C-alpha cells in the first residue's frame, strides 16, 4: 500500500516537474510553467476565492484589505466582564508588545485590560493595536440557510428540474437528431437549417409568448413549467446529429439486415454509439438547467417551487445583500454540477463508434 502511494507521489511529482529534456530547465519550460500557472490562477482563482470567502463572517467579508483565509478574532473570557472580550496585540509606548483584551472603544482610544490582571485599565490609541486572529470557519453560513430558509426544498426542486429536464432533453433531442442524421429525405438540410436558425432568437424575445403558452397550459408555479419549454434545444439536436452522421452507414444497414425495427436501430445501435455526444449534451443540459435563472424567475412565483438559483436571489434584498449566505449557497449550488462533470467527463472521448470497424 505504502509502495503504491509513493509510486503515485513520484509520478505526480514527475508530472508536475516535467521538462523538455536535458538537465536544467530550458527557457521554454519556464515560460510554459508561468503560462500554465497563470491559466490555473485565472480559472481556479475565482472558485477558490468564492469557496474561502463563503466561510467568512459578514464582518470578515466587509474587511479591507480582504484576507485570503477566513479569520476570526480571538476572544477571551475575562474576570469581571460578562461577555468575552476581543484580544489585541498592543505595541506599548515603551515599545514592548502585549496581548490585551479590549473593554470598550471611545473615539480613537481603546480601553483595554490584561486578561491575566483584569483590575487595571490601560488606554491605548487604536492605531497601536492589532487584532489577534485565528483561522476560523463560519459554518453558520451553511447551516443557517439550510435550517432557517427552505434551502433543502429549493435544492430538491433544482434536482428534480435538472434531472427530469435533462432526461427529456436527451430523449427528444436524440430522436430528432436520429431522424435528421439517419434518414435521407428531401428538405433534410432545410429542416436542419431551420433548427439551427432558432439559435439566433434570444430568449428575451420569446419570453412573453412562451409565458402565455405556459399560462394557458396551467403550468405556472409547477416545475413542469421549467422542465418542458426548454427541453428541445437546437444546440442539442445539432450536436447529436453531427455526431450521429459519423456513425458508419454500414452499421445501420447491418442492423436493417438483422431485422431490427427502426426503433431498435435507434435504441440499441445509434443511441449507445452516440454516448460520447450524449454525455456532452447531458453535461450541458445539467449546467443550463441548474444555472437557469430568468425563466424560473418568471414562471415560479411561490417559494415552495423555487429552484436554487431563485432561492439564492432571495438573499438579495433591495437594500441589503446577505453576501455570506449568497456565497455559501453558491458553493452548495456548484457541487452537483462539478460532480456531474467529474463523472461524465470520461465519456467525452470520441472513437467508440469507429473502433469496431476497419
Amino acid at each position, binding site marked *: 500500500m505504502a509502495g503504491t502511494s509513493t509510486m503515485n507521489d513520484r509520478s505526480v511529482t514527475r508530472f508536475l516537474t516535467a521538462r523538455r529534456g536535458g538537465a536544467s530547465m530550458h527557457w521554454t519550460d519556464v515560460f510554459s510553467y508561468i503560462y500554465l500557472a497563470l491559466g490555473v490562477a485565472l480559472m481556479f482563482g475565482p472558485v477558490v476565492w468564492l469557496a474561502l470567502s463563503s466561510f467568512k463572517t459578514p464582518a470578515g467579508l466587509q474587511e479591507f484589505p480582504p484576507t485570503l483565509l477566513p479569520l476570526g478574532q480571538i476572544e477571551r473570557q475575562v474576570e469581571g466582564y460578562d461577555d468575552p472580550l476581543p484580544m489585541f496585540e498592543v505595541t506599548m509606548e515603551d515599545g514592548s508588545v502585549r496581548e490585551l483584551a479590549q473593554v470598550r472603544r471611545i473615539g480613537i482610544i481603546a480601553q483595554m485590560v490584561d486578561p491575566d490582571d483584569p483590575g487595571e485599565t490601560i488606554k491605548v490609541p487604536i492605531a497601536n493595536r492589532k487584532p489577534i486572529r485565528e483561522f476560523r470557519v463560519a459554518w453558520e453560513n451553511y447551516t443557517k440557510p439550510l435550517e432557517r430558509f427552505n434551502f433543502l426544498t429549493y435544492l430538491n426542486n433544482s434536482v428534480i428540474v435538472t434531472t427530469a429536464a435533462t432526461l427529456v432533453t436527451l430523449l427528444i433531442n436524440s430522436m430528432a437528431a436520429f431522424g435528421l442524421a439517419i434518414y435521407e429525405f428531401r428538405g433534410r438540410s432545410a429542416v436542419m437549417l431551420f433548427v439551427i436558425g432558432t439559435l439566433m432568437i434570444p430568449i428575451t424575445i420569446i419570453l412573453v409568448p412562451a409565458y402565455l403558452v405556459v399560462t394557458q397550459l396551467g403550468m405556472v408555479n409547477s416545475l413542469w413549467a421549467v422542465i418542458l419549454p426548454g427541453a428541445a434545444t437546437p444546440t442539442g439536436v445539432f450536436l447529436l446529429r453531427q455526431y450521429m452522421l459519423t456513425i458508419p452507414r*454500414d452499421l445501420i444497414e447491418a442492423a436493417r439486415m438483422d*431485422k431490427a425495427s427502426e426503433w431498435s436501430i435507434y435504441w440499441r445501435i445509434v443511441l449507445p454509439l452516440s454516448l460520447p455526444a450524449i454525455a456532452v449534451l447531458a453535461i450541458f443540459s445539467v449546467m443550463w438547467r441548474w444555472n437557469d435563472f430568468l425563466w424560473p424567475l418568471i414562471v415560479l412565483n411561490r417559494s415552495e417551487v423555487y429552484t436554487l438559483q431563485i432561492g439564492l436571489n432571495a438573499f438579495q434584498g433591495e437594500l441589503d445583500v446577505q453576501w455570506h449566505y449568497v456565497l455559501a449557497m453558491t458553493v452548495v449550488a456548484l457541487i452537483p454540477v462539478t460532480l456531474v462533470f467529474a463523472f461524465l467527463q470520461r465519456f467525452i472521448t470520441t472513437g*467508440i463508434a469507429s*473502433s469496431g470497424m476497419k
Partner: protein
Amino acid sequence: MTEIRLNNVLKSYGQVEVIHGIDLHVESGEFVVFVGPSGCGKSTLLRIIAGLEKVSGGDVVIDGDVVNAIPASERGLAMVFQSYALYPHMSVYKNMAFGLENSRMPRSEIESRVNDAAAMLQITPYLNRRPKALSGGQRQRVAIGRAIVRDPKAFLFDEPLSNLDAELRVAMRKELAALHAKLGGTMIYVTHDQIEAMTLANKIVVLNAGRVEQIGAPLDLYNAPINTFVAGFIGSPRMNLIEAEVVGDDGGVALQVGGQRIAIPAQEGIAPGQKVTFGARPEHMAIVGEGEGDITASVDLTEQLGGETYVYCTADGLPQLTVHQVGQLPVHRGETVHLRLNRSSMHLFAADGGVIVNGFKA
C-alpha cells in the same frame, strides 16, 4: 433453398443511370459471384437484392415473390459487409444474437444457435470480447457467424475479404468455399478480384458499367469469353489482346500486325481487310526455336518464380506481351525470343469487341 431472379433491373440516382437493365437468375444453392472493375455497379446490384437500395425499374423476385416493396429487414437475407459492420458496443455473442433477438426467438434457441455457429467458425473463445479486441480475420468470422445464425434465405457478401492481408485472404477464401459446401445455401458474392471469383463461384456474372457482359461457369468464361472485356478481365495475368488486320496469305488468311504476320486457319466471318483483335493467354504462348515462331520479340523483363516464369517482351508494332511458362526458363533481358501461338486456344474478336471465334479448329 432460395432462388433469386432479377428482371430488367434498373437503377438511377437522379438523372444518372448506373444499372442498365439486368436480367439474372440465381438458382437455389448456387454460389454466384459478381465481378467487375470498381464502379461497375456490382455492389449496387447486391444492395438492390438486399433491399438496401430501391430499384428504379424492373423486379427483384425471391422465391417467386416480387420483393420490390419489401424492406431489407423482411426479405430474410443476410449480408456480410466489407467493413464487417460489427456493432462495436456489443460483445461477439451479442453481435451474433442481435438478429435473432429482433425476430423474438426464445433465449435458449438463440444461445444454441450462436454457440453452434461460433463452434463452426472457431470463435467460441472470443464470444465475450468486443469487436475491437479481435483481429481482422476474427472479425470477418464474426461477421459471417452473424449471417449464419440467422439461417437466412440467402447470403450476400459484399467484398468480404478485401480488408484482409493476402495470406489470410487465401485462407478465408478456402473456408468460404468449405462453408458453402457445408451449408449449401444460396450465396451471392461481390468482388473485384477475379481469382476469388474463379475459385469460389458456380457461376460468375461479369459486370461492366452497369451491364452484364457475360454469365457463366468460371471455366466457360475463361475458355470462351464473349468479348474483349471478359477476355481481358478473367484470367491472371490478363490475356494479350492485340489489334491486327486480316490479310490474304497464299490461299489462307493471316493476321498482320506491325512487322509480324500470323497465319490462321480460314474462318467464317473474317475477310481480308477487316480490323480484328486477337487474344492469346500468356500460358498459351510458347517460346520456340527460330523459324517455328509466329512473333519475334525481345525480352524486357523476366520474373522467375521458381515453379513458373513470366516473360514480358515487346515486338515491333505490338503492345507488350506476357508469356507464362512452367518451370525455370533461361531467358534474359534483351534476348530475342520466338513466340508461337497455340491456335486451338487463340481468341479472335471483331472490331466492336464481340467474339468471332474462341480457339481455331485445327
